[in-house]
């Protein structure tokens, strides 16, 4: 036990989880923005936009996240010398956020679309009847209700995103939890199982409140019909 506690003196475990939370935070924001835009594309009356939305979702939803993140480093950084900032390490952090955002935007889009399906058709018809064109109708009538109906699936996407943030390890973000776990196992082979359990527990602690919160919010915010 004492042996186990020395791990926390040598390795800053909370800092590693903090890196995952930061990755999640920024990726969640960008994924929500992009996902909402894609959902608008998919429900819009313009066929070419519908096609773009559907193509994006099908491509990114069906590409393994590891490949997207690895492409950020091997392709964007390695071959194309893309740099999102002057700071060498922050660059990988941002590339990882980019990869996580692009991937999860596809899932956010589908979650919102499922929310749109909870809005009765009469709402859209009524919006058109009072003279709103597509964008105002979406902004004022459809999307607000859709988001409230999509809280639970959006929560699932967020939970997946929290755990998927460890894939940033493939993108050279070495400060996050799964990378630290690898380092700890390399140097403390005598404590492999306790190290695994520590990180598993860490994610359980982060994810359970999110699950409880979204379940509560989805009840609270559901549109009573």
């Amino acid at each position: 036990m004492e042996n186990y506690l020395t791990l926390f003196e040598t390795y800053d475990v909370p800092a590693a989880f903090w890196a995952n939370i930061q990755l999640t935070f920024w990726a969640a924001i960008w994924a929500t923005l992009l996902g909402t835009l894609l959902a608008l594309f998919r429900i819009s009356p313009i066929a070419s936009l519908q096609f773009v939305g559907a193509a994006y979702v099908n491509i990114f939803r069906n590409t393994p996240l590891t490949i997207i993140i690895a492409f950020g480093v091997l392709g964007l950084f390695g071959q194309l010398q893309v740099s999102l900032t002057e700071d060498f390490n922050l660059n990988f952090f941002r590339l990882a956020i980019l990869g996580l955002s692009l991937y999860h935007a596809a899932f956010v889009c589908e979650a919102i679309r499922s929310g749109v399906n909870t809005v009765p058709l009469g709402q859209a018809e009524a919006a058109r009847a009072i003279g709103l064109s597509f964008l105002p109708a979406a902004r004022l009538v459809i999307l607000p209700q859709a988001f409230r109906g999509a809280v639970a699936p959006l929560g699932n996407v967020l939970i997946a995103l929290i755990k998927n943030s460890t894939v940033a390890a493939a993108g050279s973000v070495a400060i996050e939890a799964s990378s630290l776990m690898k380092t700890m196992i390399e140097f403390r082979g005598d404590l492999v199982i306790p190290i695994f359990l520590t990180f598993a527990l860490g994610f359980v602690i982060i994810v359970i409140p999110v699950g409880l919160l979204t379940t509560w919010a989805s009840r609270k915010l559901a549109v009573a019909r």
Partner: protein
Amino acid sequence: MRKTRYAAAAIAAAAALTLSACGGGDSGGAEATGEAEGSGETIRIGIKFDQPGLGFDEGGSYSGFDVDVAKYVANELGYSEDQIEFSEAPSANRENLLSNGQVDMIFATYSITDTRKETVAFAGPYFVAGQDLLVRADDDSISGPEDLEGKNLCSVTGSTSAQKIKDTYPGVNLVEQPGYAECVSLMAGGGIDAATTDDIILAGLAAQEANAGQFKVVGAPFSEENYGVGLPQDNTTCEAINEAITKMIDEGAWEEAITANTEGADYTFNDELNPPTPEPCA
């Protein structure tokens, strides 16, 4: 009522995670144990499957320096080549494979360290590697880690080599990748200037057919890694393995194995420290 349900769900989730964490180490172990204990005729050896020149899976047959030493030692212990069962021993799993009895010994670039000695025993060392740099063949600007200031260096996430760079050379831009193959492809693309890990691993990478002639090992090792044979702590084979290693070195088969596995890499092992004398068994 609802609260208890959440608590139950939380416990179930924790239990599932616990079980899956244990499951990783166990994969394929149960059957292997059954077989070997039943017949007592095979020896189970853990090697790397993904390190060209050391332990490499070429679609069912295995090649590399670790594999050659393993075969030689097994032969000395009285096992012919078809009595050897090779299985993969990834870095993170090595201690568990040994202490759970899933393999009999491990030849997998396994450095002898004091922390590891707390859970496993070591025979050997059979090779002394040193952390070194791999650079493009036409790059003369890097002749050691001091020249790396401000340059981009690649290593593997969570490896001893990566940690050493972070601790000793903080001015280096370190890219941490899941494997050395990614490092080599980054270097070929020009994104990074050098890759670092133990010299013999770098030599194995440079000697790969696809990379031949493109890269060179700098040859200025700045650490000492004693590759040992990982054994369970209650082993009875340590002395015999040490004798086999000494014999392999004396016979010249040891040097032949190194030369054959690093051919084309322009690599010579550090002859101040090699060949090593096995340490007495604990």
